[in-house]
């Protein structure tokens, strides 16, 4: 955990410790990078508003050195731009300060579950009632097969590969439409609306794909 507020470090270290997490708390980006190299944590809780080395810089360095540790970005009233920037830099999720320990625990567990799933390299991704067979390129909702166009399948596949994690509009555009796709969010919106319709998902009360306002979409794990 990287945070420059001693009270927060103390409270979270104790609270997470109750749930059998092994926690180390540091107060600067430099220390965080040193710890990440020697101690190799599974999850890094990174405050963006650090004195000295900027949180984005720490995130960039972490992602360059070690792709294993999941990073949850923590920030006070972040602008949507900051959220998108952190996610595009490779953060796995973000939590807005102030938050309670239980809320943080839920996020950490979700990130760890996803890590485990990726480590197993399963050919079938399950998210609730949704099943994605990557080998056969088949999608089933509630056991019934759903027919998607290639573009729709690609979008759903990218969301499923990051199930539980917010995927930014930029990430979707790049991965589905190519590296140099220009930022027309309406494309992704339109395709997602089609997928929702075929999955029988209500956009106002989504079971599968939820909207991350100003950021992108998240497939609920």
């Amino acid at each position, binding site marked *: 955990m990287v945070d420059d*507020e001693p*009270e927060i470090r103390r*409270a979270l270290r104790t*609270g997470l410790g109750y749930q059998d997490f092994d926690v180390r708390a540091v107060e600067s980006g430099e220390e965080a990078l040193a710890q990440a190299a020697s101690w190799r944590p599974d999850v890094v809780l990174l405050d963006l508003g650090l004195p000295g080395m900027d949180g984005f810089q720490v995130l960039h360095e972490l992602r360059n050195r070690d792709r294993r540790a999941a990073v949850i970005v923590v920030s006070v009233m972040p602008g949507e731009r900051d959220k998108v920037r952190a996610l595009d830099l490779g953060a796995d999720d973000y939590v807005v300060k102030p938050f309670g320990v239980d809320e943080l625990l839920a996020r950490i567990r979700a990130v760890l579950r996803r890590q485990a799933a990726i480590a197993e390299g399963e050919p079938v991704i399950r998210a609730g009632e949704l099943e994605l067979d990557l080998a056969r390129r088949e999608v089933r909702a509630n056991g019934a097969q759903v027919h998607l166009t290639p*573009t729709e399948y690609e979008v759903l596949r990218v969301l499923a590969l990051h199930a539980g994690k917010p995927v930014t509009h930029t990430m979707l555009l790049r991965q589905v*439409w190519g590296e*140099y796709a220009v930022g027309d969010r309406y494309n992704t919106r339109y395709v997602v609306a089609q997928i929702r319709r075929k999955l029988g998902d209500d956009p*106002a009360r989504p079971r599968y794909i939820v*909207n991350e*306002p100003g950021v992108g979409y998240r497939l609920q794990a």
Partner: protein
Amino acid sequence: MRAWWPRALPYLVGLCGVGVVTALIAVVRPFAVLPNLSAAYLLVVLFLSARWGWRPALASALLAFLAYDWFFVVPYGTLWISAPRDVLDLVLLLAAALLGARLVSTLASQRRGAQAEAVESGILNEVAISALRDPDGGEALRLLCRRAVEAGGLQAIALMAGEGEEASVVAGDALSGADLRQARWAAARGLDLGARLEHGELHLMRIYSPRREPRLVTLTGGVAVFWLREERPPTQEQCHLLAALLGLGGLLLDRRRGAAAVERARALEASDRLKTAVLSSVSHELKTPIASLRAGLSMLSMPEAGLAPEHCEMVAGLDRQTSRLDHLVSDLLTMARLEAEVSLERTPQPLDEMLGSALRALGPLLDGFDLRVEVPAGLPPLLVDELQLERVLTNLLENAVEWTPAGGRITVGAERDGDRAAVWVENQGPPIAADELERVFSKFWTRRKGGSGLGLAISRRIVEAHGGTIRAENRPDGPRFTCHLPLAAAVPAAEPAPGG
């Protein structure tokens, strides 16, 4: 006594010239019998027309005609002509003198015109180049004033910039208090006094005391104030030059005004940026201690913390109060931000998606209510800022939750209304008093204890920034809050093909 002298000079010269030529002819005639000695008068006439124009030339031609007739045509000493040949001679002399005078004087005036034009365009070039060198235009305006006095033949000139009563001298001579007041008065009304600039021509009017009273011309970007030289009013060429200089001055003053407006806009933008920066730092300062409190209190209320049940309950209550404080601070900061600047990023947004986000943000708050969503499937997307509109929906739903008895119905609906959408949230709470239907949207005004009184004020500000409206009304079931918002026009008809 001095006034007639310059005007009489050409005629005196003509008189002397004709006299000298007559004397010469008288001297030469006895020795050489030359048929056309009268042609010598042409020299005088042509000289006069080239130097002073055709009027003195005509006068001297007539004088020469009479002198020749008197002295050299038989009978001498009278204007009587006896031989028809002599009549022809004299008429030819007069005709040649007149034609020659006309021709030479036209050529001379054309040359003078060309010279004046060259001088004029030289001066205009000089001023324009100076204006290009100096983006502020101050140096060019000062040069323009100097040239207007030197070449334009003015006594003095001042150029003023600024709107009406705010106008002040930016180049040229200083103005006395009375002149300045008069100039501002005229500038505020867009009046011209004593002179008018029209179709590139400067028209000067007669005024009562030209030495004391200034002439004023309103230009696109300011006012020109000038005085003529009393003893010598500007010639036609000078008026032409002055008109061109004043036109150029107007352009320069206009450009200067544009530059000043850009500068002011920049300063405002900088102050907005400063406000936003201060707000962002204030947010951080206010939120950080709340974050520490919430982290600590939520940790203490975990069963593993081992607090006695009554303590645990108390700590959980404190945690809830801290959440409420967080909410109030967020509302205050949001309002302050909206008041500093409302920057909207408007894109086509499906209403149901935004509603989904708002419902998710409220989370367990909505548990236990009968929530109904009545959004028609074919509703086109709204042209709104996604985040701001989600805030509006969240605020309206929160408001509904506050007033609806547990288990009551909350309805979110929408319908198309021309090129707009009506979006409403209705609850089953008690009706709002008629005089409060408008007041519920005022800042810090709240019907219940503990609310920030900002939720609806924030919503109104956001909706109005979108060019929409929001109002409250009492329906049979309970109060309804309706927003009218713009719809996005362009909806793609088919799925876009993947590329790249």
